[in-house]
């Protein structure tokens, strides 16, 4: 991960009108808390020293999933070129948690931001080899022009934020 890649990622997200924050692991929980809109559901964050804010519900019920305004999930990597995050279909429900609520907060380690699609496919292939073979490349906000004009937030989230955890 170079500074260049991170800048590129930030620019791409800006173009997609997706929020971008770069924070130290120790402050991540606090930052997430300020971004989310309650009620919030989440999938636990597998990054060392980082935990979800207390009032984020993990292992939600379907009622909680439906009612949630925000879903916080880790993403296994991100692609700077397009501003893409890779959401895995894990047993703790990261896929529906990133999809159902109006806002998705994606958390990624800085070292997992790769420069381009090709590097993204290398990461994807490594994951497939390890049995993690269901992944969504999500780029920006859900959108449609089917009702005559571009509208965001159709079936998927209309707001997206990406939190990049600084390398130590």
């Amino acid at each position, binding site marked *: 991960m170079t500074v260049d890649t991170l800048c590129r990622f930030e620019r791409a997200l800006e173009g997609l009108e997706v929020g971008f924050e770069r924070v130290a692991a120790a402050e991540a929980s606090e930052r997430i808390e300020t971004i989310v809109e309650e009620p919030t559901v989440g999938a636990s964050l597998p990054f060392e020293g980082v935990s979800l804010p207390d009032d984020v519900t993990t292992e939600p*019920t379907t009622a909680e999933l439906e009612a949630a305004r925000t879903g916080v999930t880790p993403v296994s990597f991100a692609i700077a070129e397009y501003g893409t995050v890779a959401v895995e279909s894990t047993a*703790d429900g990261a896929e529906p948690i990133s999809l*159902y609520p109006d806002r998705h907060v994606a958390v990624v380690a800085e070292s997992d931001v790769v420069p381009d699609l090709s590097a993204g*496919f290398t990461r994807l292939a490594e994951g497939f080899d390890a*049995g993690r073979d269901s992944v969504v490349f999500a780029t920006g906000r859900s*959108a449609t022009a089917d009702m005559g004009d571009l509208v965001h937030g159709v079936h998927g989230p209309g707001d997206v934020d990406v939190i990049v955890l600084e390398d130590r």
Partner: protein
Amino acid sequence: MAQRTRSEQADRIRHLLETEGPAIHAHASASNARRKETYGGTDDLESLRTDARAIKEDAIDRLPELIETVREAVEANGGTVYVADDAADANAYVADVVEQNGPADETAEPSVVKSKSMTTEEIDLNDALEGEGIDVTETDLGEWVLQVADDTPSHIVGPAMHISRPEIADLFNERFDPDDRFETAEELTRFARDHLGEIITGADVGITGANFVVADSGTIALVTNEGNARKCAVTPDTHVAVAGIEKLIPTLSDLEPFVDIIAKSATGQPISQYVTMLSPPTDSPTLDFDAPDEPITAGEGGAADETGASGTGDPDRDFHLVLLDNGRTDMREDDQLRETLYCIRCGACSNSCANFQSVGGHGFGGETYSGGIATGWEAGVHGQESAAEFNDLCTGCTNCVDACPVKIDIPWINTVVRDRVNRSAESEPHDFLVDGLTPDVEEGGMDLGKRFFGNIGTVAQAASATAPVSNWLADAGPVRAVLERTLGIDRRRDLPSFQRESLVDWFETRGGEAASRKRAAASSERAAQADARDDGADVDREAVLYPDVYTNYVDVDRGKAAVRTLEALGVPVRVPDLPESGRAALSQGMIATADRQASRLYAALAEDLDAGRDVVVIEPSDLAAMHREYERLLPEGSYERLRDGSYEICEYVYGLLENGADPDALSTGDGSQPVAYHSHCQQRTLDLEAPTVAVLESCGYAPETSNAECCGMAGSFGYKQEYYELSIDVGERLAGQVEDAETVVASGTSCGDQLETLLERDVPHPIELLAPGGYRT
């Protein structure tokens, strides 16, 4: 379905031009503009297209093997693969899966939510399921609008493109009777989201298509923007994916170029919002909204599986991959239709097509598919009759050729199917009038109008020999009525005026080759004197000017201008009487005739090519035949030799000027004289617009190029009664762009004719502007 008569077809097209055309044009042309811009900004576009093409060629080649590979992979993941022979087979299987996974209460209706899939449109899956008492809801907003309106897709990517926002608002206000009437896209989208969201959470089965299927991992890739496909796949316990067998690609790494290019070609986005790659059954917990207080992870798969990588997914999940054949195996074995199977259904060919932009997929489309490639799909999956209904809407302009991400020669597929349709027509007693004028090698009872236009060279020769009487006759009212009735030539269209003296005759009369040599030498002499120090000005080339049918018999002036220009630049010219190129025959789907003409033309030119003489062509469509279609009609060596030795006239002049010829020998402008220039569609595809622009600039003009898709005339197309109004509709978009310019030039004969009709003034070829002595208006 019986073929429509000409006037029925004309009525239908007129209706679509008025009703659906405006909305289609707005969306399709905007997508096309965005695609062009995105293509332009993608450095490795050509290598992406080449890679994508190569992967598809390989995959279709290995298809039987890939079907076995994917079966093993999906079964190892815990899912099931079913290969369906045809629509009925696929529908019965899906209905069965739904019945088995329906609600616990057997009397309740099973419910299915679907994401957009043209393949399920192809097999009419919704009707089949509804016939079995299954409730089906489309969740893609465009598809849902169609479902509410009981309408059919008009575009393979934007199915409801033909319905405008106010029309959707009216439809929804009437159907759903909201407290506050819907008006904005925002309101309509919110309503759809909530309404469909509830149906999705209650559904028993989710059905999706697949944009690609990775054989060795059993992964289906779905490319969407709304997120509904994700919801349909993840929410219900049972997921059925229906895909044509051609969607298989060997490995995950083969997916990369497609993920990179499909959104660019479809909508001009760098990448789609969601590229969903699932190897179902996935580990995602199933969502039971009927048990709202159970944690979603409570099922058997649950959070207990800490690795998150069980390999066989959540045990509550059930997955079926239905691979549809429905004619595809036969297409694979058909040397001409096979290419259709490389199609990734991005819709770029539709968006780039002028005729499509005017009428949409309800005019330019068959039972399921629409746009240029629909001819291949419909012929393959629904049969030739379905393709015959709309195949003539492809004028062979080649705008789609540069748009297609997998480099399919879409115009050629249209030509082939047209040829097959011609041949399958019932033999009727030949019309004596047409028979004498049609020395083709076609058989059967093909459309008389097509035969007439396919043999236009012979017609023109006869008309020229009897001009001006033939012109007076042709203009007479009763004759126009007969032409309309027998040949389908619309009586509103001006007919070409045939010249008594052909270009070839004129050239001979003024002394032929010997005189041309003297003139060229005199020009060289003058140039050398004017610039004594410059010894590089001697270009030392000789040219054979190809007298295409229109230049030879109708627009003789542009031929004369070309001869004079070349001589003024020191190039001696020959204008032999040469055979037709086959372009006219090709555009009517008369491949055998074109094949014979290509061989004859090559034979007639072989000696000149061997002698190092350059073949110079004025009419872009004839040059395009030599550079594109001849690859299929001539032996490779002959094709390459002619291709490498032939040039478009302004491209050739550009080369001469670059090599030291002096532009002052031509008619030059003052440096700022504005000229509106409309290139020719096929010329653009050959990348030959730029040389004309460069020549005009170096000769002191300030050319502005048009960016309209097409002039709408396209050879014979605009003459035909059923297409006259469509032709005018397309042409008016171009005319609107250039009408304010004082001088308008166009490279193609038909482009010039169309513009002259619409602008009511002369529209010469650029060479007429440049020729010594200038253009006399």
